[in-house]
């Protein structure tokens, strides 16, 4: 009877053996299985087998992720980053700057259009315009005189006269 009891191991005991082997159970269960293993060779055998497997399972390392995956990931996330157009805080700052520049330009333009000159200012400006035109006229007159009195006779007329005299000498003989 006792042998039968020792030989047949219930599912419940087996589950406990496995839990003990994988160190995945309470202290009570560990102690009970420990003493059971001492009395029952099959329990002991099972416990040793499962312990060995559990020990080896614990040693199985993680598979290393290839670097190529991470490198290609960098390209993908950079592509994703490009799709991010603008952060809200920058967008707000840009809009504020643009609107203030626009308002300034518009108000300045309005100011320019609204400039009102006094009658005195306009009269003074009229005098200045006429003075400027008179100055120009003086310059043009000077230029005209310079050409007529100086440049034409001395610098143009003189060489022409000299040319004629040379022709006279050569062709006509004096």
């Amino acid at each position, binding site marked *: 009877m006792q042998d039968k009891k020792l030989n047949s191991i219930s599912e419940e005991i087996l589950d406990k053996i496995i839990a003990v082997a994988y160190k995945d159970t309470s202290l009570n269960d560990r102690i009970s299985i420990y003493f059971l293993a001492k009395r029952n060779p099959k329990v002991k055998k099972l416990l040793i087998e499962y312990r060995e497997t559990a020990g080896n399972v614990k040693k199985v390392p993680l598979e290393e992720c290839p670097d190529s995956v991470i490198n290609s990931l960098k390209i993908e996330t950079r592509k994703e980053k490009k799709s991010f157009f603008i952060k809200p805080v920058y967008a707000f700052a840009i809009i504020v700057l643009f609107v203030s520049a626009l308002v*300034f330009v518009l108000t300045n333009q309005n100011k320019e259009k609204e400039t009102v000159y006094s009658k005195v200012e306009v009269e003074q*400006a009229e005098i200045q315009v006429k003075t400027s*035109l008179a*100055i120009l006229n*003086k310059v043009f007159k000077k230029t005209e005189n*310079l050409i007529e009195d100086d440049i034409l006779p001395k610098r143009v007329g003189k060489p022409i006269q000299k040319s004629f005299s040379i022709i006279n000498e050569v062709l006509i003989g004096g």
Partner: protein
Amino acid sequence: MKYAKYIFIVMVLVSFTAFAQKDYSNEPGYFDFGDLSAFETGEGVTEVFLESNILRMVASATEEKEPDLSSMLNGLKLIKVNVFDVSNKNESGIKGRINETDKKLMSQKWDRIVRSRGGDETVNVYIKTSGNNNILGLVVTTIDKNDQAVFVNIVGNIDLKKIGKLGAKFDIPSLDKIDKE
């Protein structure tokens, strides 16, 4: 994000341009003689700087009395005139500036229509024309070592004949002695 940075920079630049002064450098008929204040050594100095808005006001004010002047002024954007008495102190400086101006204008494809040098006088007249031969700018530089030096730049739609005609009309014998405005 990269794009956000570029947009941010562009917006900053745009806001700076909003604060910028009005300048005529984009006008093809405009020329900057540089700082001429160093030549203000004599007693007689004339300086005229009239922009488009005041020119339009004058045009409007003279429309009835002087329609020729009015119509001419309506087409102008700027009249700039500087006149200095020439003396030993500023003569060489002014001559140097006139020569520099000549080089710059020629390099900027202005047409020099008059260049005369006679004795103590030098006169240079330049025009800037558009594709269809409209005159967009006029520059005059002249020095008489016994008299005055003149720097003139007129910007806008210019009719030389009209300017000459009107100038003769407004010629005042006592023009030689004009106080600084």
